[in-house]
């Protein structure tokens, strides 16, 4: 992990919302931006952003992934951090763009952008050293750390660092917490039976904690686990970490 830590707090950052947040979880994006701005960081949201290209990359369609990724590269000309409220998409840009753009004419730009990418919670903790005061009512949350945060980026603990500052939040871990939730992007469509079996087991362990809410740094996992619990008529509200943090600390 070459999570290059910016020694000083930057004045401005780019915010890359991700397509999933854009369409299904905009509140996560808005909350993340509010958190950043409260820390005195101004946020630039390039309106031409779409998707990082990960679905095609993981499905073997490299030309298509490259076309989409290339359209994103142009969005971050200034030498400031790119903040992404998803470890999965941050991992795509940080870890996989260098491989995707290898040998391409814009490889240098891709490497430059990859070097500036931060997953949101890692940025809030490592760069901004964000301090939080809990203003909310007591609540118990079960944490699902995404595989990308835990293993690909090695930032799985940042979510806990933030949550532990909230005195009225009880943090619960599901049994077998390091196990993948079974989403895996197009895996859920290509291997629906295995995906369903994994998701059901994850949903069961999440539910068994008895928590009031499910929290993650990745909306893909929330959509998957939350969708499974809903299907079983045992819905548990799922929230992106940014949304929970903003909701409980805004004045």
């Amino acid at each position, binding site marked *: 992990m070459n999570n290059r830590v910016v020694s000083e707090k930057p004045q401005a950052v780019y915010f890359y*919302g991700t*397509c999933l947040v*854009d*369409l299904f*979880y*905009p*509140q996560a994006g*808005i909350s993340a*931006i509010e958190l950043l*701005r409260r820390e005195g960081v*101004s*946020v*630039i*949201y390039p*309106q031409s952003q*779409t998707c990082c*290209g990960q*679905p*095609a990359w*993981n*499905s*073997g*369609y*490299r030309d*298509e992934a490259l*076309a*989409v990724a*290339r*359209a994103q590269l142009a*969005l971050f000309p200034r030498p400031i951090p790119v903040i992404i409220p998803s470890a999965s998409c941050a991992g795509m840009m940080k870890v996989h763009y260098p*491989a995707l753009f290898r040998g391409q004419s814009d490889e240098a730009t891709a490497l430059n952008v990859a070097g500036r990418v931060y997953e949101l919670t890692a940025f809030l903790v490592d760069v901004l050293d964000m301090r939080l005061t809990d203003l909310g009512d007591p609540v118990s949350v079960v944490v699902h750390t995404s*595989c*990308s945060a*835990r*293993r690909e980026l090695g930032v799985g603990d940042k979510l806990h660092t933030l949550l532990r500052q909230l005195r009225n939040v009880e943090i619960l871990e599901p049994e077998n917490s*390091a*196990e*993948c939730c*079974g989403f895996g*992007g197009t*895996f*859920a*469509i*290509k*291997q*629906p*039976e*295995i*995906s*369903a*079996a*994994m998701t*059901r*087991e994850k949903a069961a362990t999440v539910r068994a904690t008895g928590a009031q809410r499910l929290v993650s740094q990745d909306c893909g996992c929330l*959509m*998957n686990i939350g*969708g*499974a619990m*809903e*299907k079983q008529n045992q819905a548990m509200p799922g929230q992106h970490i940014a949304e929970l943090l903003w909701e409980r600390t805004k004045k």
Partner: protein
Amino acid sequence: MTTDFRSNVAQALKQDAVQTHFRTVVDRLRAHRQAALAGDAAFEQLRNRCAAIRADAIRRLPQLLEQFESKAQRNGIQVHWAETTLQANRIVLDIMQRHRATFLVKGKSMVSEEMGVNAFLQSHGIDCLETDLGEFIVQLAGEKPAHIIVPAIHKNRREIAHLMHGHFSELPYSEDIETLAQSARHFMRDKFHAASVGLTGVNFMVAETGTLCLVENEGNGRMCSTVPPVHIAVTGIEKVIARLDDLPPLLNLLTRSATGQPITAYVNMINSPRRPDDKDGPDEVHLILLDNGRSRIAGDPELLKTLHCIRCGACINHCPVYRQIGGHAYGTVIPGPIGAILEPQKQGLDAATGELPQASTLCGACAEVCPVRIPIPAIINRLRWESVRKNQQSQNSRPVVPGAGSRRRPLEAAIWKIWAWCCSHPGIYNRLTKLATRLRNRLPAGMGAWTVARKAPKPARSTLHESLRTMDIDHE
């Protein structure tokens, strides 16, 4: 066993008891590994060292194999090269026939499974007896191993008791593990003495000394390699390492990653046939070196990492997919993540096993535990690309991976093209996402494979793009 992955999976997932059993056993194996690594601050350095040892060995594969061959031959080991499994089987048969042997005792060997040597010899009137307890159980059941370290991982104690009782009806029925093991042991003892040929696998070949190293826990490997007058060792060419000094760190890492043991009960170092002063040992030692696609894999700078594998099974034990479906569903000799990258490269992406690179969420658990740091998810990604890449027929060179491009479907390819076009045209993308938000209450509840186990997600009232237009931020 069928070879169609999807139907194997459906079958495996129908059997709740099997699934529960698998989960319990792999969780135990994970815990054993965890306990064996606990408090070892130098573990990551050990991994680095072993990864470097394996990378160096595969990089210098032809040279090390030649060195090994000349050392082993000087020690009196007869070295045979087999490009295909058929050639390897024929070499075994030839040795057996020269000794007029009609019976073979076998130690555990995944390469012998790859060769299908049991079936081959049987078709020539030669019986094989698996002497590793797990393999023995699998053989009694007429099945294949479901795991590379724990072949009978899919069998519970009661099933094993019934199997043993069915085959040795003179023995009283027992579910006691010690009793079952003793019964098998008793049965095998005579067979070791009766057999004129024993066959085993190999864990490592040491180039500088010509030594074969074989680790095991039951002593059956030692019996197979010392009691019969002829010992045949079979192995893949990638098992070579340069130096004897490379062995201790690799063994240390192998056993702890596999079963959590600090060392196996037996570590066999085989240098030669019986020498005049030796108390035991075979008169002849043969080594069959099987290629079967390995040298082709070694030719690609990324894919060759597949050959670094030391067959510990840690990736299998930590794979959430394996945990759900078990070993047989893969329809391969080697299951789990390492099987999912190795088998398609050997058999081709157009074979049934070509589906296996899809059997991963890319969660990274395999790479996290791999003792020699094989980047399994990256190789899966590469193979997915190879599966659907446009045909390279215009070039004269043969594809690096057999069957490359064979899984490209026109409809799927078209969908990705359209997707890419939309996502690289922000105006189109925004119009589509906006449309989805407007139709949020009218979208179908059923969304194919997704909604089998989940409710369909509902688009938000307005997209993040839209919401932020009214927020006081810089849109650049």
